[in-house]
């Protein structure tokens, strides 16, 4: 059977595939909910169940529509992309509008755990008054989790009076404990209005430093890379392959380790860098303790880490410039200096611009150098505790959501991530526009 042609065929195939994926996910979730009361299964049961539906389902649909099997080659990559990239992105958008946080995590609050004394249908008798034990007033409508060894069930309270509460469903097991679920709620634009109301304490300075950091890193690295590329491209230079191999070292070491080594080397009292400066007659520099010097330290460490990449990229771009151009220029009596400004640099522009742009996009979200070198610090007055002197947007979002200073404000962190998403996509679109990557795809 032939593949149905045109847009109609594409939409048909797409809806069949997506239908299959949605169906199996739905069965996974429903199956998990059904099993929950009896077995207390781990959450990944959903994935296993979905897979158990997906594989036979795909075979069955393949029998019914033989032309669809060509699309199955996309299925592994597509399902992972949907589940672990697209779904998290959609989830981020949703969470950015909620008050999801450590205290409102959607999990049962163990401090409200109360023993169930007696159970009769949906009616539970607790050992303490419901309103005090579960800390809710009024309690009707709150979600609770009822559990015993190997069983658990989420249910809503219909009514509560004294020590008894009535659930909206009957637990199929003998309940031992009950605890309130700290559900998070939709709060509209509150996270964004918080970011804007505190903009002078966090958003503006962090954004300004983020742009300055990415821009100066790219410029510094490109400058050193360009100089080295030009020097090493000189075919008359002896040992040029040796220099190239040796200078690439900082690229060959795992950055996550070298950045942490630099924390020790930049130490004020004991650091090897300050020891070297002492011999050169420079007083010790507070690399990681002063808000401004910390910025310089980050740029220098990033230069150490990043120049081999730029050097290699420059050498690659230089190798595409034909030698005849230089020979022609020499015949016309051009000095090497004129050849550099007239031939080399203009011809480097086209291959180097995409590299610089993608390097900018990468450094814009270069979390690990900031977080591992300074942790966003040192502290600066008049800032939020999560947005200190060298914090960039991504480390601010991370600290807001996952550090003690941020008090696990996941929703707020998601809102910040959303801002970064917008900026990152804008940079990428500019990159696509300039390089014309999309036109080459076909």
């Amino acid at each position, binding site marked *: 059977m032939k593949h149905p042609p045109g*847009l109609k065929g594409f939409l048909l*195939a797409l809806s069949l595939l997506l239908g299959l994926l949605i169906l199996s996910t739905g069965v996974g979730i429903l199956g998990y909910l059904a099993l929950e009361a009896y077995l207390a299964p781990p959450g990944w049961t959903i994935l296993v169940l979905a897979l158990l539906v997906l594989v036979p389902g795909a075979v069955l649909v393949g029998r019914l529509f033989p032309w669809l099997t060509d*699309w199955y080659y996309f299925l592994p990559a597509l399902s992972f992309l949907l589940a672990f*990239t697209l779904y998290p992105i959609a989830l981020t958008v949703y969470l950015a509008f909620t008050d999801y946080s450590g205290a409102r995590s959607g999990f049962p609050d163990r401090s409200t755990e109360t023993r169930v004394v007696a159970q009769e249908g949906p009616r539970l008798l607790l050992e303490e008054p419901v309103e005090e034990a579960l800390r809710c007033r009024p309690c009707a409508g709150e979600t609770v989790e009822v559990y015993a060894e190997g069983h658990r069930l989420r249910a809503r309270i219909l009514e509560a009076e004294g020590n008894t509460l009535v659930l909206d469903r009957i637990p199929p097991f003998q309940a031992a404990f009950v605890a309130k679920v700290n559900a998070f709620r939709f709060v509209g634009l509150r996270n964004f209005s918080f970011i804007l109301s505190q903009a002078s304490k966090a958003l503006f300075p962090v954004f300004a430093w983020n742009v300055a950091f990415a821009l100066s890193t790219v410029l510094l690295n490109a400058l050193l890379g360009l100089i080295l590329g030009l020097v090493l491209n000189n075919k008359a230079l002896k040992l040029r392959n040796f220099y190239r191999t040796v200078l690439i070292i900082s690229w060959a070491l795992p950055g996550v380790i070298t950045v942490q080594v630099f924390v020790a*080397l930049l130490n004020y009292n004991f650091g090897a860098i300050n020891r070297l400066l*002492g011999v*050169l*007659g420079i007083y010790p520099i507070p690399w990681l303790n002063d808000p401004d010097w910390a910025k310089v330290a980050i740029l220098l460490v990033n230069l150490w880490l990043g120049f081999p990449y730029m050097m290699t990229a420059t050498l690659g771009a230089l190798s595409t410039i034909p030698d005849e151009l230089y020979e022609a220029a020499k015949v016309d009596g051009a000095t090497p200096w004129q050849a550099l400004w007239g031939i080399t640099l203009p011809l480097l522009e086209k291959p180097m611009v995409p590299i610089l742009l993608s390097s900018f996009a990468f450094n814009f979200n270069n979390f690990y150098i900031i977080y591992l070198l300074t942790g966003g610090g040192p502290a600066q007055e008049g800032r939020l505790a999560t947005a200190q002197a060298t914090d960039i947007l991504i480390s601010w979002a991370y600290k807001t959501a996952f550090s003690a200073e941020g008090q696990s404000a996941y929703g707020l962190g998601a809102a910040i991530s959303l801002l970064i998403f917008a900026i990152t996509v804008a940079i990428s679109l500019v990159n696509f526009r300039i390089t014309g990557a999309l036109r080459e795809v076909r």
Partner: protein
Amino acid sequence: MRRLLAFLLVGLALYGIYWFALNRLFDAGSYRKQVAFGSVFVPYGWAYALGILLGLVLAILLYSLAYTALANRIQGRKRSPWPLFWQGVTHLFLWILILLVYYPVVQVVAASFDPTNNLFSFRRPDTGFLLLDAKVIPYVPEPSLENYAKLVEGVVLYPYQVGLLLLGGLALLGVALIGLLRRLLTPEDWMDFWQGRLLLLLTLAVFALALTLSPRQFTGQGTEAKFLLWVRNTFLISGLTGLLAVLLTATAGYAFARFRHLPGRYPVLLFFIFVQMFPGFLALVAIYYLLSRLDLLNTFTGLVLAYSGGIISFGTWVYKGYLESISPSLEEAAMVDGATRWQVFTKILLPLSAPMFVFVFLLQFVGTYSEFVLANLVLTGVESWNVGVGLRSFTTGQFQTKWGIFAAASVLGSLPILFLFYGFQQYFVSGYTAGAVKE
């Protein structure tokens, strides 16, 4: 006009840097004129350094003048000494740069052999040589492997694991030997064959070792005794991620390259590229939520799944490009003979694609080895940390006492990637700078 604007911008930037240096970096509050206790301070040391540099340049100048004069006299030609002089100055510049770039590396390697933590203390050696006293050249009076010994303390290996280790070591030795022979002799076919086989053996041995080691075998006290466990965790996570990348992208890359008849192939391709624009770790809150719901926090499975989003687009793209460079005539012939698409893919294309799979695997392996954001989020227990997260526990603790051990751990943790990078340098360079050069 454009040139004027460029000059203006550069001038503005330079003035900004000057202002920043004067008012923010070298003001009285930030740059205090006091010498750290126990350190060496040479007033006007930079002037001496400049003097030495100038002397070297002068020496190069004299040498090139003398050499050219001599050569001109003997050969009776008239050549300019300047190319030789500039060549010498270039070498000088490159060597100074090498010294600067390697300074941190040398300091760390030296510190890893120094059990007394001499390099991270107030103690000042008294050798009479300025650079040694200042510890600019690392002063290690009694080098020993004590720091490394602390990292492997209490590690119990079963006999078959020792065997695997020996096997891996022998394979590594063989690979290195053949690599050396390749440099010395002219490359031959048996070298490629055996190097491939030995590399495969090495990979299998390392992977088997990583799989069979269990946290119970690391009985040493203190967190540093868990270091090898972290290395094993990292290998497991990175290896699985690389494998998953190959598995997920192979079929999609094939379909993109060969199924040109499918309507809507282009929109799907666009979708893959657009998804790549969203760095996965930006959705870290959502991924944390997702993994906590799936009860996969603090598991390797959870971390590998979280990585999987970021690896698909790139791998698919690379494999698609590779297949498009292979002529489809062989496949068409097979299809005429009645082979199905699946048979064509598995029997013809997969064996041809081995180098590409190695490339995708290696890039993902090295990439995840250095990943920190998600690892720090997902891996919360000491026993499931990877190398990056584990080292972080040293830097947040007391440096003075653990600096030597930290240095040893850094050296050991960097070695695998260093070997991989220099062993497969062409792969990495072409992989990361793809797009720079379009033939």
